[in-house]
């Protein structure tokens, strides 16, 4: 499913944090959003997963306006991993993942056998099947993150929005989570993905396309190698960067240094 963001501006408490963003993610592509802290990545994503209304512009799924859609119908098409992950309520992991089926259920929402199977598969895909009976609040940060990704997968979305999916994960888990997002399910079907990432090397390696956000606007967009130039990294991130190719995969990788104070 194609995700089109056109002329999107987002305001929080009267302040415009995201200005006139236009971005397209073609069906099945993995599109990355990178930028320094405070550049508006999370605000943009919050609007895309409908926690915030657009101040101007629109988010469209295959041409249909997401914010004009029935909320449940929208949630059957687009799932998200938001940044909030805390709850005092002692749900089990299985219960948290089962919430992903909510937009698909009617009435009292008694889960069907099919619902249960979808949830079990989602948990297995993030390598957390063994956690099913555990209490969610007692999990480590990395375990929580994987369970919340499983909940989003259990929604069986056509578009998946991820806000820093690798937060709290160790390096092996970071690679595993991004690989599972890239590779799709057993049949190879995968949703269109829009993800914010802090780590530029991970972004370069796993995204088909990157959009660089700076002060709420898009500073550059395109394939990782074209976007992550030393000039852009100096200007937007304030670092000196060397670009090298990964010896095996050929993906662009970056080596960082501080900018010398004189040059800034």
């Amino acid at each position, binding site marked *: 499913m194609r995700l089109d963001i056109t002329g999107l501006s987002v305001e929080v408490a009267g302040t415009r944090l995201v200005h006139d963003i236009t971005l397209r993610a073609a069906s099945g592509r993995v599109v990355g959003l990178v930028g320094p802290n405070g550049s508006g990545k999370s605000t943009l994503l919050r609007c895309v997963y409908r926690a915030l209304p657009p101040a101007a512009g629109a988010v469209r799924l295959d041409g249909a306006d997401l914010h004009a859609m029935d909320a449940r119908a929208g*949630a059957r098409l687009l799932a998200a991993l*938001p940044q909030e992950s805390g*709850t005092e309520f002692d749900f*089990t992991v299985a219960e948290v993942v089962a*919430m992903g089926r*909510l937009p698909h259920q009617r009435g009292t*929402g008694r889960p069907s056998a099919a619902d249960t199977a979808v949830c079990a598969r989602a948990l297995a895909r993030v390598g957390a099947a063994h956690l099913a009976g555990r209490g969610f609040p007692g999990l480590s940060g990395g375990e929580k993150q994987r369970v919340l990704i499983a909940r989003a997968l259990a*929604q069986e979305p056509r578009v998946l929005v991820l806000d820093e999916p690798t937060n709290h994960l160790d390096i092996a888990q970071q690679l595993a989570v991004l690989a599972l997002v890239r590779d799709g399910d057993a049949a190879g079907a995968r949703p269109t993905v829009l993800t914010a990432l802090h780590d530029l090397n991970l972004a370069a390696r796993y995204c088909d396309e990157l959009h660089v956000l700076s002060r709420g606007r898009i500073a550059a967009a395109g394939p990782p190698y074209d976007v992550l130039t030393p000039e852009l990294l100096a200007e937007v991130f304030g670092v000196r960067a060397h670009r090298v190719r990964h010896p095996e995969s050929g993906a662009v990788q970056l080596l960082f240094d501080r900018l010398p104070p004189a040059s800034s």
Partner: protein
Amino acid sequence: MARPARTAPLVAALLLALLGSVLCGTGLGAAGVGWAEVVHHLTAGLTGGTITSDEVSAYTIVWELRFPRALLAAVVGAGLSAVGVAVQALVRNALADPFVLGISSGAAVGANAVLLFGALGGLGVWALSVSAFGSALLAMTLVYAAARTAQGLTPLRLVLTGTAMYYGFSAISTLMVFTADRGEAARSAMMWLLGSLSGAGWGSLPIAVVAVAAALVHLRLSAGRLNALAMGDETAATLGVDAGRLRRELFVVAAAVTGAVVAVSGAIGFVGLMVPHVTRMLTGADHRRVLAVAPLVGAVLLVWVDLVSRVLLAPVELPVGVVTAVIGVPCFVLLMRRRGYTFGGGA
């Protein structure tokens, strides 16, 4: 932690316990009425049978006083417990109860106006309920208007506004008690503030039953959405749940049930705080199960608490709120300490 895989046996057991409790609530009391007589009068009442003239006083005690009172205790207990669950999800706070929204103390102002100053005298026996319910709705409107922002009803503002209003209304109530120079009336007002089912009769049942039943159905159908809301507003949004709209719904349901229940039973504290937590220890946090079990636990609890309140120091009746606190506080503290409890028993 281990949790029962199925809720159905628990619900069945609680339904049986409730039936037994209502029977005990009807059969036991200060005036000794034998069990055979109790069953006889209950049957007569339920089937429209006849009784002889020398049985009238026992019949009145069983059918006109104790039975409707036990039923009302069950309804009030179920309503307060269900609303407690709803309010805790609404403000995402373990310490919330139906009274944190300031609605019961608003109702108390209306009740005091009747008890102390004879307001709405034209309505006769209905004056107290109508006045309490009306002022509960007024309090709800005030709290809602004061707590509402452009972002909708946020949990923290709702709790703070409700608490502030609670103190405001309580001050008005206290002032009313002080200025009314009728000792017996002040005692009634105090009794009402702490909760009492002594005014129960068949007349107090219909409104409470309808309000509580409607709320139970609505909340049970919203269980999935309550789960999403408990995870956070953003998560709710990604799951297709409009957190703002759900909060408004829950607020209205909670306020209406609290108003309807408080109007017939006074401000019975602690049930709405304690029963949701006790229930979560049994069922876990999933609102589908919590909302099936909590109303039954609350109903059974309040039938027994009411029984204790009227037999312990008979013929003097204790306020129900005193008994719930005396039984509830130590049990609750012990349970919490033993389980390292947060919001459901594990963690």
